């Protein structure tokens, strides 16, 4: 636009300039020609007057005076009597020269033509004198052109100057016109005060601006929502484009895939995680097949769902969804193990029972031993019942479907009653039991607490040494009420400590049958503690004893 304005402005001024110079020159030429004619006429008059005074001698006298004009005297018959420029002898008859012929007939004549004698363009003025001769004065028209050219140089110089000025002015003006347009603040179109002609455009821009801003805001809002949602998602979400480059990945996905911090947008997905199962899933999805696999990253397992995004029948991207299934897999494994263990635990006593029963049935047992056999069957069956009860209890605790309401329970009292119940068993094993402490009220289900105490004390008695002791203490601590059951028994080796709360886990598989028990005791303890939101701490030294501390939260006061 700037250039265009400049060009048209310059063109305009140049055209004007040239036209005026051309017209001026024509006028000037005309003026000069007229001037010259007038001068010549004057000169003719002077020369004529001189001739009348001094005849031909006068003419001879001024021969050298005038360099500009040519003076010729022609006789009546056309012979040239005088010429101040040429030799008279060589000149032919001038009678039929148009101006002279005209002067003979009319008294005066003038022409502009090429001189035969001198050879340049001349303006001739011939006058018939009183004596019948003709006096001709002429001047070269070159003098006009000469005058014109001499002034022409000046004119051209002025012209060049004017052109330069025109260029400068045009440039300046262009700048002045364009400047406000350039200075328009498009961010705030209505604040500008420029040409009225631009106002509708600015209003239009203003409106567009507003709507664009609105849309941008909406978009940003939506983007924010989207990222808020994806960022707070527990599942990992990765979006890839059609060549497998990351479009977006939420923080969970980065954590799951162990990619570390960094900007992955625009980079290939394999820079995030190069596991082959991920690659296979993405490749399948890029071909349009969704898939679901379990992949591992670090030491966790993830369910990976890869879905292609299709647009107009072509895959335009892939959405990956990652779900942490480590816990799920773990619990599934635990359940499977539990089932296998229960079946095994059930099978062993049942095999014994069925063996004894078979012997009895076939009457292969002597009469006096039958009672003994029946006793063994009873023993095994009691064990089975205990096991099944434990399993039922565990599954109830698992489901958290214990229907009993919470009551206030005095831990110290409960411990005393448990000690009383286990007294005979302790005495049998030659183990001393003590209860000690300040007592403390907790909010709990009474028979579950009793069960917890029995299990802990029973273990303390069972896995103890001859003449050992089991000490129960109840004390208040800042976090609640702590129950500690400490024994002086065989202890638990460090490598097993982590696992003894697992179902059916036994430190010594071969030893377990001797001491009895279902292998579920501590597992039940763990569940009961969890039910009451209590925490369990285990400290044990092999050969020196085990101490299990259960810390119950302080009873809520409202029940008091």
């Amino acid at each position, binding site marked *: 636009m700037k250039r265009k304005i400049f060009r048209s402005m310059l063109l305009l001024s140049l055209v004007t300039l040239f036209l005026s110079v051309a017209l001026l020159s024509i006028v000037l030429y005309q003026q000069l020609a007229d001037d010259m004619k007038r001068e010549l006429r004057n000169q003719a008059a002077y020369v004529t007057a001189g001739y009348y005074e001094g005849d031909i001698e006068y003419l001879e006298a001024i021969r050298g005076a005038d360099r500009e004009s040519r003076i010729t005297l022609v006789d009546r018959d056309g012979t040239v009597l005088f010429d101040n420029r040429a030799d008279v002898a060589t000149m032919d008859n001038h009678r039929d020269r148009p101006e002279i012929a005209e002067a003979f007939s009319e008294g005066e004549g003038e022409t502009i033509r090429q001189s035969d004698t001198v050879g340049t363009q001349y303006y001739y003025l011939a006058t018939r004198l009183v004596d019948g001769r003709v006096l001709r004065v002429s001047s070269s028209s070159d003098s006009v052109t000469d005058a014109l050219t001499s002034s022409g140089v000046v004119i051209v110089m002025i012209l060049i100057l004017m052109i330069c000025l025109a260029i400068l002015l045009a440039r300046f003006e262009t700048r002045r016109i364009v400047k406000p347009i350039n200075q328009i603040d498009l961010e705030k179109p209505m604040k500008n005060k420029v040409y009225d002609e631009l106002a509708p455009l600015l209003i239009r821009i203003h409106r567009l601006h507003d709507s664009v801003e609105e849309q941008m805001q909406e978009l940003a809002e939506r983007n924010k929502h989207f990222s808020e949602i994806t960022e707070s998602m527990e599942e990992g979400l990765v979006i890839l484009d059609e060549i*497998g480059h990351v479009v977006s990945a939420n923080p969970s996905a980065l954590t799951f895939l162990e990619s*570390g911090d*960094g900007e992955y947008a625009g980079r*290939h997905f*394999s*820079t995030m995680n*190069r*596991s*082959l199962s991920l*690659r296979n899933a993405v490749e399948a999805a890029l071909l349009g097949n969704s898939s679901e696999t379990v992949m591992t990253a670090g030491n966790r397992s993830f369910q990976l769902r890869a879905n292609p995004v299709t647009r107009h029948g072509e895959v335009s991207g892939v959405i990956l969804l990652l779900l942490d299934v480590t816990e799920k897999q773990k619990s599934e494994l635990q359940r499977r193990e539990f089932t296998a263990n229960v079946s095994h635990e059930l099978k062993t006593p049942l095999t014994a029972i069925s063996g004894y029963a078979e012997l009895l049935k076939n009457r292969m047992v002597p009469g006096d031993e039958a009672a003994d056999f029946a006793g063994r069957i009873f023993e095994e069956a009691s064990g089975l019942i205990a096991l099944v009860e434990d399993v039922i209890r565990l599954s109830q605790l698992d489901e958290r479907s214990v229907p009993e309401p919470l009551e206030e329970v005095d831990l110290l009292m409960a411990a005393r009653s448990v000690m009383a119940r286990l007294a005979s068993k302790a005495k049998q094993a030659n183990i001393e039991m003590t209860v000690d402490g300040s007592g403390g009220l907790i909010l709990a289900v009474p028979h579950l607490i009793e069960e917890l105490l029995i299990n802990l004390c029973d273990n303390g008695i069972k896995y103890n040494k001859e003449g050992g002791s089991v000490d129960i203490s109840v004390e208040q601590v800042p976090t609640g009420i702590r129950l500690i059951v400490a024994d002086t028994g065989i202890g638990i080796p460090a490598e097993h400590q982590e696992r003894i709360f697992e179902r059916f886990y036994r430190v010594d598989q071969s030893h377990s049958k001797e001491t009895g028990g279902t292998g579920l005791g501590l597992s039940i303890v763990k569940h009961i503690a969890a039910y009451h939101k209590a925490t369990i701490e285990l400290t044990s030294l092999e050969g020196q004893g085990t101490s299990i501390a259960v810390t119950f939260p302080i009873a809520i006061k409202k029940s008091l």
Partner: protein
Amino acid sequence: MMRNRFDTQLDQLNTELIHMGALVEDAINSAVCALCQQDKEQAKSAIKLDQLVDLKEKEIEDLCLKLLLQQQPVARDLRLISAALKMITDMERIGDQAADISEIAIFLADEPYVKKLEIIPKMAEETIKMVSGSIDAFVKKDLDLARQVIDADDIVDDLFVTVKNNLIDMIHKNPLHGGQAMDLLMVAKYFERIGDHAVNIAEWVVFSLTGEHKDIDGSVDQI
């Protein structure tokens, strides 16, 4: 247009290298599982993975040569491509060694170990860490990580010496266990070599990033 194509090809080279790295990692992991758990299936899968690694090497080599000939890359791109050419050779060797370990593992799977493996799994863990580290360094263009891998080689070398001494003790105690000791020594040596290859890869990563490559005598040549 031409440039675009070049960029796509470079990108492809990058992802193919990452893929090859993943294959190599899987191959070692399988080989280690096969060895520690005496699992023949894992050993077979490691050998299969090695074949995939070999194929991948050929593929990447073709891609590199095509890039060199057709695009005549310079500076950084040239470094990346020449480093890639060297790296795949090392990765392929790692794959081979994983397969070698697997073959020994198949052989060892038939009889129980005389003594529970302790140092070798640790060595395996360290070498896997090195290989993963070198590939991670390439993926993330992480100079520090590459240097860590180069330094970690000493750990593996020390572990190899420990394994060797332990095996000598084992033979001393009972010369009948010599066969197993020899096999285990080979395995340890393979791990040590894998560590060396991982160092090579890390050095090429450093080269592709900085243009400096550690020469044999430790001097640094600027290219």
